[in-house]
């Protein structure tokens, strides 16, 4: 039962967009997202599809968080935990090719400019 469910779950997550990645020997790309009032700056705006470690760092004086969501239809957002100033959080995800929106979901922060788009190449 478990053997059947896992591939199904993996396919479902890929269809939906970003999926948590399991550790392995596959190379991993890194993107650092520096957040502060009121910007969200990525260390690179484009990465290869596959395992990607997204690391958010809070260089601001307020708390911030990060949400990543594929711009493909039906995708679900991936939420990173909220960070205090000088805080840091990271998640390693399996990202298929496409465009991904990133933003801080704390009230008003996105509207003030804390948003960006990451391009994932196939």
């Amino acid at each position, binding site marked *: 039962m478990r053997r059947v469910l896992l591939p199904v779950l993996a396919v479902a997550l890929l269809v939906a967009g970003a999926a948590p990645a399991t550790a392995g020997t596959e*190379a991993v790309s*890194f993107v650092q997202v520096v957040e502060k009032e009121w*910007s969200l700056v*990525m260390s690179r*705006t484009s990465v290869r599809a596959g395992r990607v470690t997204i690391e958010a*760092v809070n260089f601001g004086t307020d708390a911030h968080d990060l949400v990543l969501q594929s711009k493909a239809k039906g995708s679900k957002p991936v939420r990173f935990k909220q960070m205090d100033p000088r805080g*840091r959080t990271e998640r390693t995800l399996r990202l298929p090719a496409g465009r991904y929106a990133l933003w801080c979901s704390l009230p008003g922060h996105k509207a003030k400019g804390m948003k960006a788009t990451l391009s994932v190449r196939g």
Partner: protein
Amino acid sequence: MAEIPRYSGPFGVPQAERLLWRAGFGPRRGEAAQLAKLGLDGAVLSLTRPAGEKWVGPPPRDEKGRRLAPGDAYGHDHLWWLDRMVRTSRPLVERMTLNWHDWFATSNSGVGSQQLMMAQNRLLRRFSLGSFRKLLIAITANPAMLLWLSGIDNRKDAPNENYGRELMELFTLGEGNGYTERDVREQARALTGWTSTWKRGKGRTDFRFDPKRHDPGMKVIFGKKGTFSWRDSVALTLRHPKHPPFFVEKLWSYFVPEPPSATTRAGLEALYRASFEVRPVLEAILRHPALYTGPRMVKPPVVYTAGLLRGLGRGVDTRSWVWLSENAGQRLFYPPNVAGWDDERWLDTNSFHGRWGIANTALEKFTLGDKNSKNVKVPNDPEAIVKGALALLGNPTIRPETRKELLAFARGSLAGATGWKAEAYPPLVANAVRQLLAVSPDLQTC
């Protein structure tokens, strides 16, 4: 030209060790003996005019076995540079890069981009042994520096004095040394004109000089009148009579803990004034008797760490080095302020605790008596234990009194080791002796 004294005493392993620590990150196993064979001149030239880079040792990884992404992952910047210090075959190039990082102290806390900090690091390395004039021009226009000291906000209708002030106070002349507040204001005007483009998601890019933002008006700097530009600002500062003494004293202080004599100072100043080249001044400092006969210096935390790893033959394989180094007072790419690190604080009660942690982590892969080393037999012999600890750390030269203390500790700890203790205690004592040796004054200083 005043004659600069040259060291003429014996040049053996202890002198070669000191040279490798002051002008690098300490010797690998056997390296000091090899260097000693070259004699003083050969040894100095091998450092100041090195062959191409040849990395020695395993490539760096973080604790998850991942390759480093110095521009994209927290702490990987620190690990990436630490790895260069550990594996380099051009230690003075790397050490001078570190010295320039302290001299032009730029912190990512104000820059907010590891990519830009890496670019600055490459710049510092490119000019590590070359022309200070070219380095000063390049650093003035460097994006990380433009962000850190507000060069990017310095425009003709709103001059910002930040860079102009530090250019004189910290980089070229010294605090209040030959300039006035008016010079600061006029320097700021000369330095106007830098800008960049803001792109959502990318931040500031395309750093450039925009003549429209520059103040082309008449200025008076150091009593000279002209429509000075940012390049003139740098040139005027370098030609200031107070600059060579400042430069010489500051550069000297990275290698020798006591100020140079008047004769030495005059000789080094003349050498520097001739071309603004760093290499000839470095060569004179590295051949100077004060380096070999003067008091010891405290190793900066990253130098201490890199040296331990070089001695042990261990590569960079954990992100722990980031917080350990921070605890000891030196996080690379994050100097505490624009004046750089305060080396008076390298060995206080707080940072010493950090150094203890560094030694402990460096040695943990070599721990005796655990499941990874159960086949290693440690003799119940204090002499052998001390000898083994020295061998593990690359056989550094230590004072007889340090050896005596280590032996006394090992003897005392093994005194009651009979019966089952005769086998169980020696590995534990050996681990403790290694730690005590690694944190001894002999290894904390050089």
